[in-house]
């Protein structure tokens, strides 16, 4: 395959094929992101705080648009604590007020969340001084899930040496295929 590099057009075409694979994958992710209006439409459950509903390693599909109803009590939502990058998957247990769009002086609803498997609500998880969430903090409600699939991501981030091993194996496969 590499032998065709003598011709610049052919080299450009090979490069283009490789580049298009990467860019199509990226655009599919962004497309899903735009359709669901969530910066991260697919997340992996990192803790056991939602057991028995969701286990560590489950893959969740999120939807961030309120087309028919507002975010209500009982929905499982994913939110980021202010200024932290860790998504937390918990259930909305109480809601004070209505409305979720900041229009003039119309108040927006205040939401309180709690993990199913936790003893207490999330007040201690929020930023200091923050006692409730608003709709903007939420990056999506869970509309679907695939069990166990995300465990690979967890393993890779908790055991970084596995990334090296995986790259090594992939490299070996490529080299052996040339023969």
């Amino acid at each position, binding site marked *: 395959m590499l032998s065709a590099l003598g011709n610049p*057009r052919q080299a450009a075409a090979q490069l*283009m094929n490789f580049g298009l694979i990467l860019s199509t994958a990226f655009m599919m992710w962004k*497309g899903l992101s735009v359709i669901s209006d969530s910066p991260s439409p697919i997340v992996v459950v990192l803790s056991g705080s939602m057991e028995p509903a969701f286990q560590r390693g489950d893959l969740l599909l999120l939807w961030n648009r309120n087309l028919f109803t507002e975010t209500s009590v009982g929905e499982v939502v994913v939110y980021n604590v202010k200024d932290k990058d860790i998504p937390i998957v918990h259930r909305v247990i109480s809601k004070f007020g209505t409305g979720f769009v900041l229009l003039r002086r119309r108040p927006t609803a205040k939401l309180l969340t709690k993990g199913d498997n936790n003893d207490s609500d999330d007040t201690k998880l929020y930023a200091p001084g923050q006692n409730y969430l608003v709709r903007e903090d939420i990056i999506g409600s869970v509309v679907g899930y695939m069990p166990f699939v995300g465990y690979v991501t967890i393993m890779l981030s908790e055991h970084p040496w596995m990334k090296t091993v995986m790259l090594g194996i992939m490299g070996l496969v490529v080299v052996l295929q040339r023969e």
Partner: protein
Amino acid sequence: MASQEKITIYNLADLKNTTDDAIPNYLTSLKFTPSHLLTDVRLTLGFSAFALSAACFAWDYKFGFESTKTYTAFAVALYTVLNGFLTFWILYVEKGTIYQGTSPKGDKIRISTETKKNIPVYYMTVEIKDGKTGEKKTLKISKSFTEWFDAAGRFVAAPLQTVLAQGVEVIGKVDIKRAAAKATKTEGEPVPAAAVYTPEMLDMLSGAGVSVVGSAAETATGTETAEAKKGGKRRKN
């Protein structure tokens, strides 16, 4: 580029790609002028789509998702259109074309090729437009890959060039030497399986009479048979 590189003779894609690469080289060596229009359009489409996605990645990384949502939405839509057009171009306009160009005598030629799954035959469709009369002709040539690949997987250029020079007059007019050369195999039909084996093997096979060509074949005729039968891998004896 040494054609002493061996490819796997069982891999149809390898056979086709090697042959597809060899034909433009041959025609260029005969001073045909290639037309790069098809390739250039494909490259432009592909690279613009890639550039668009790179830009999308950049603004998303720099400014975050929320503020660039609308741009991203447009980028995804435009990317889908570009990619769709690229796929359409490859499937319906290029249609397997591996060479398009003009002969030194002014005739236009376009060669497209295909293979069918699990059949080791190379199907070529050659479209000719005569330089002087403007008359168009389409030729279909199908030959087994065994005509220009040896049992070990090495590509031999001469038989392929002969096939083209004798099958297509436009090429034959320019390459007099190959057009006059003796055809190496019978034309038209796929080569029968027997022609793949070496003469020693055929003698031994007809002598033995038994259908199973097992270890007796290997020990009797040595490594050559092993090589032909096992596709290039030598068996340790």
